């Protein structure tokens, strides 16, 4: 049973560049959420995708965008990178369960992004 996989594991970019991170959900899951975790902090919710649509968004600027594909995999794109975007980016998958949206989250190992 494949868990959540993310790629790449590490990435170094320069200010102003663009980056794309990728995530494949756990087998059987249909919902993907993205989180940003700064050093020493808890994860911060970026957005969630279900049925190829962004269903909920956290307090992140439009530079952060995403996509979900028909096979439930997802991408996170960040444009015009800032030094403050350096963080661990975590993808989590879950199973949509009706209107309550109650489902355990399963995380990938994350992508460590460094912006210089």
């Amino acid at each position: 049973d494949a868990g959540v996989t993310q790629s790449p594991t590490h990435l170094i970019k320069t200010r102003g560049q663009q980056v794309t991170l990728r995530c494949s959900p756990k087998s059987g899951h249909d919902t993907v959420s993205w989180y940003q975790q700064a050093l020493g902090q808890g994860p911060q919710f970026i957005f969630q995708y279900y049925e190829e649509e962004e269903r909920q968004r956290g307090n992140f600027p439009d530079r952060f965008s995403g996509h979900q594909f028909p096979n439930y995999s997802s991408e996170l794109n960040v444009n015009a990178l800032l030094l403050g975007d350096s963080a661990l980016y975590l993808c989590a998958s879950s199973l949509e369960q009706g209107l309550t949206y109650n489902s355990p989250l399963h995380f990938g190992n994350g992508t460590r992004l460094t912006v210089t």
Partner: protein
Amino acid sequence: GIQVEQSPPDLILQEGANSTLRCNFSDSVNNLQWFHQNPWGQLINLFYIPSGTKQNGRLSATTVATERYSLLYISSSQTTDSGVYFCAVGEPGNNRKLIWGLGTSLAVNP
């Protein structure tokens, strides 16, 4: 918005000791999860426990939703239990978004 507070912020144990971690939240929730983040950054879901008690090996958790707190018990701690333990709750009216505490950093010494 809802506030999530975890205590203690830091904890040092000798191998074999027991501990209790606490999570207080400021509003009613119907989605509460405990996670362990190991020193390599991997986040593992320990419990999905909006109410009641669950046990998984040496770990157990209890959530008293009416009093807005949850407890995570670790018994006979091992060095592999080291890391940060996070409590996360669903934002009231919007369980798609989890609100996270700052975590309890646990170090278990041999």
